[in-house]
C-alpha cells in the first residue's frame, strides 16, 4: 500500500465533512428554488466524477489493447464501476431536485436523455464483464466496448438534441451565470467537487487493488492445485 492510498480516504473524508458543512450550514439558499437547490452541490460533482470515470475507461482500454497489460484492464473495470456508481447518483439526485422545481420526476430533455443512455452503455459494459465468460477474451471485448463507447458518445450527444428540436432549451440553462451568484456558492461547489473526486479516486484505487489481489489469489490457487495434483 502506498502513502497515497493511506492519505486519500482521510483527504476525501475531511473534504466531504467540509462540503457537508458548507452545503447545509454556510451557503445561502438560492433565491428562486430555495433549499432544494442545495442538492446541486452533490449532483454536479457526481456528474463530473462519472464523466471522468468513463473517459478513464476508454484510456485504460486503449492501453490494454496496445500493451496487453492486466493492470490496464483492472483500471478499466474499476473506472467503469465507479463511473456507473456516480452516474446512478446523478440519476437519483436529479429527479429529487426536478420534482419540486419542474413538477415532474423525469423529462426527456437532451441532457437527461444523454445521462441515462451513458448509464445504460456502461451498465452493459459491467454486465459483459460479469457474464461474459472466459477472462482474457472478456477483457479484450470490454476494451473494444470501452473505446467504441467513448467514440460514439459525441454523436449521441448531438443526436439527443434532435429530440427537442422545436423547443427552446429552457430546461438546460439552469447552470447559467444566474445560478451561482454568491461567491460562497462557488466555494461550496469547488469543495464539494474536490471531495467527490477524491472519493472517486480512492474508490478506483481500492477497486484496482482488490482486482490485483483477486488475480494473485486465483494464481496461487491454481499453483496449489497443480502441486497437489503432482503429489497425488
Amino acid at each position, binding site marked *: 500500500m502506498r502513502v497515497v492510498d493511506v492519505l486519500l480516504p482521510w483527504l476525501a473524508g475531511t473534504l466531504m465533512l467540509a462540503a457537508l458543512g458548507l452545503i447545509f450550514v454556510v451557503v445561502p439558499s438560492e433565491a428562486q428554488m430555495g433549499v432544494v437547490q442545495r442538492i446541486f452541490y452533490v449532483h454536479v460533482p457526481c456528474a463530473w466524477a462519472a464523466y471522468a470515470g468513463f473517459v478513464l475507461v476508454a484510456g485504460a482500454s486503449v492501453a490494454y*489493447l496496445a500493451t496487453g497489460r492486466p493492470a490496464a484492464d483492472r483500471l478499466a473495470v474499476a473506472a467503469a464501476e465507479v463511473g456507473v456508481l456516480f452516474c446512478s447518483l446523478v440519476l437519483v439526485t436529479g429527479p429529487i431536485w426536478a420534482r419540486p422545481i419542474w413538477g415532474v420526476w423525469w423529462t426527456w430533455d437532451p441532457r437527461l436523455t444523454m445521462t441515462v*443512455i*451513458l448509464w*445504460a*452503455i456502461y451498465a*452493459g*459494459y459491467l*454486465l*459483459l464483464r460479469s*457474464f*461474459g*465468460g472466459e477472462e482474457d*477474451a*472478456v477483457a*479484450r*471485448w470490454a*476494451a*473494444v*466496448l470501452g*473505446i*467504441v*463507447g467513448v*467514440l*460514439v458518445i459525441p*454523436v*449521441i450527444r*448531438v*443526436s*439527443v438534441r*434532435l*429530440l427537442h*428540436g422545436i423547443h427552446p432549451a429552457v430546461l438546460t440553462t439552469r447552470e447559467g451565470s444566474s445560478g451561482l451568484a454568491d461567491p460562497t456558492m462557488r466555494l461550496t461547489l469547488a469543495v464539494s467537487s474536490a471531495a467527490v473526486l477524491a472519493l472517486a479516486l480512492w474508490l478506483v484505487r481500492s477497486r484496482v487493488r482488490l482486482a490485483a489481489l483477486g488475480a494473485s489469489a486465483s494464481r496461487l490457487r491454481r499453483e496449489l492445485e497443480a502441486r497437489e495434483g503432482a503429489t497425488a
Partner: protein
Amino acid sequence: MVLRTALAILAKDLRIEARTREGLASALVLGVLLVLVFSVAHDAPADRAPSLAPAVLWVTFVFTGLLGVQRSFVLEREHDALAGLLVAPVDAAALFFGKLAGNMLLLGVMQAIVLPLVAVLLHVELWAALPALLVVLLLGNLGFAALATLFAAITVRARAREVMLPVLLLPLLVPVLIGGVKATQAILVAGLAAAREPLGVIAAFDVIVTVAGVLLFEQVVRE
C-alpha cells in the same frame, strides 16, 4: 485482396441463406409481426396514424436487425467455423466487410417488405417520399450493420449471448434510432432537404462506427 476476400465471405453467406432461407424468413416474419403489434397497440385514429409510422418503422428495423445480425454469427460459431475462417487465413478487415455487406443486404430485403406494409397499414403516402427514404435507409443500415457486426462477433461467444447483444447495442444505437425517426418524419412532411440535420448525424455515426469496426474487429475475433 481485402475486397475479394470480403466478396467471397459475402457469397458464402448468401449461398447459405439461399439454401436454408432461415435468416430471411425469421427476420421477415418477426418484422411483419412487430409492425402489426405496434399498430394494434397504438390503435391510432386514421388521421393520426401516419405520424406513428417513423417510430414504428425504426423500432421494427432495430429489433429485426438485432435478430438477423445475431443469426449470421451463430452460424460462424457452430463447429468453430469462425476459427476455421481465421486460420484460412482471412484478414479480419475482410471478414468484417463481408459480414457487414451480408447484414446490410438482409436489412434491405426486410425493409423492402416492411416499408410498404407500414405505408398501407398506417396510411403513409409512400411513392413521393420513396427516393429520399432510400437515402435514410441506406445510411441507417450502414451504421446499424457496422456496429451490430462488431458487437455480434463479441456476444455470440459470450455466455449470456441472447440478452447481451441488445443490452450492449441499443444504447449505442441511439443516434441511428433518433436520426432515422427524425429524418423519416422530416421527409414525409417536407422532403429530403428538411432532413439534412438528422442525416448528418447518421452519416457521422456511420463513419465513426465503420472505422472503429474495421480497426477493432481483429481484437474481437482473435482467439
